[in-house]
């Protein structure tokens, strides 16, 4: 087939692998950082903060990821000269921040009521009640869904190719434009996603089983 070997295709498309991994890892980490204050505001007893957080989370999740990337890259970046990669990182971090904030909130809500009461009855200050008793358990509860969210983030990162980030999909399109057969090229791209995604989802199941064992209370 036009003198293109599978090996050269693999290495050509695989050149985008590191960008895909960077997109996933960086936006997951940045998202986790954003998610903490959002989740705190979301569970605050101040109504204004709660509503503000709900608004931010809903908007981040209500607008499709692709539209976010287009808004940031075409709408905002001309003003501040953003390259595609940082634009995509900002967009994906916002989205993952909102998703992870919801996970964290569910984690906080699902810590057993008796835990906070026990901490109160021991005369811990409200700050200590939250950070030393509720938060560690909330993190445990939020971990499995967050780990499986990492898998969907990996797939979401493919949308960055649309604004010109040189990830797996972008490199695959490049090969197709050079004349390589599309079915083969995108199958290879799919295999590359699976190579990252399957271990990641096994890891997330592992996290789930570990946490299940750890969080059980009688």
């Amino acid at each position, binding site marked *: 087939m036009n003198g293109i070997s599978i090996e050269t295709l693999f290495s050509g498309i695989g050149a985008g692998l590191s960008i895909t991994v960077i997109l996933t890892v960086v936006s997951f980490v940045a998202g986790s950082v954003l998610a903490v204050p959002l989740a705190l505001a979301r569970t605050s007893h101040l109504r204004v903060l709660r509503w503000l957080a709900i608004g931010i989370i809903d908007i981040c999740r209500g607008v499709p990821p692709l539209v976010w990337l*287009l808004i940031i890259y075409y709408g905002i970046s001309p003003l501040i000269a953003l390259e595609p990669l940082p634009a995509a990182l900002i967009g994906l971090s916002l989205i993952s921040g909102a998703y992870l904030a919801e996970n964290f909130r569910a984690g906080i809500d699902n810590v057993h009521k008796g835990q906070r009461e026990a901490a109160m009855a021991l005369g811990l200050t409200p700050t200590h009640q939250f950070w030393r008793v509720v938060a560690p358990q909330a993190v445990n509860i939020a971990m499995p869904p967050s780990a499986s969210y990492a898998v969907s983030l990996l797939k979401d990162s493919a949308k960055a190719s649309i604004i010109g980030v040189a990830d797996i999909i972008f490199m695959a399109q490049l090969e197709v434009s050079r004349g390589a057969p*599309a*079915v083969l090229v995108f*199958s290879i791209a799919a295999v590359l996603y699976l190579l990252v995604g*399957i271990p990641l989802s096994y890891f997330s199941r592992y996290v789930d089983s570990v946490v299940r064992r750890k969080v059980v209370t009688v």
Partner: protein
Amino acid sequence: MIFDRWIEWLPALLEGLGVSLALTGCVALVGLPLGLVFGLLSTHQNRLMRTVFIVFIEVFRGIPLLAVIYLLYFGLPSGGITLTAFVTMVIAHGLNLSAYSSEVFRAGILHVGPGQREAFASLGITQTRGFFHVVLPQAMRAVIGPMMSLLIMVFQSSSLAYTIGVGELTSKAFSIGAMTFQYFDVLALAGIIYAVICIASSRIASNVEERLKTGR
């Protein structure tokens, strides 16, 4: 004023929204029945059958939708098959949805639990009849909430049809942006339209889910 422009663009965007919704509907028509079949096969008694379909579902869930769209869109013509962008999108997205919905159906079927099967077996009802009269109706109830969330995701991902020029909401917004260079304004309006629909329908979905839960 931005609002004047929004009013000017709104008809074109709403037309695009119509295409997005039509796309979502067609994808559901392909993806949900197919997902039910895959879901049933992945709970089949035959172990080989079960494994084959579980692997198929897992693989499909691991691949970004965009890769499937491009594979079909750029790949099919070289095999002599030419489809419109809309149909290509429906097939790609429908397959993608079937993998996700099969998981939901499977969970719903497993959720019914062996107690129910034993119950109809002890009443002398055949496997098949019992399945359709006892298991499936209960599974459907458990399935409705997650299914609505899936459809909201489908509506959001229909924006990927922009990449192959289907003329749905995102494509319309982007081409107005390209003509006017007012990308931010028009994309923001498109974003608001998406968000309003998604937020409203996910509120409805969680209400329905809550009611189904407390209704029993």
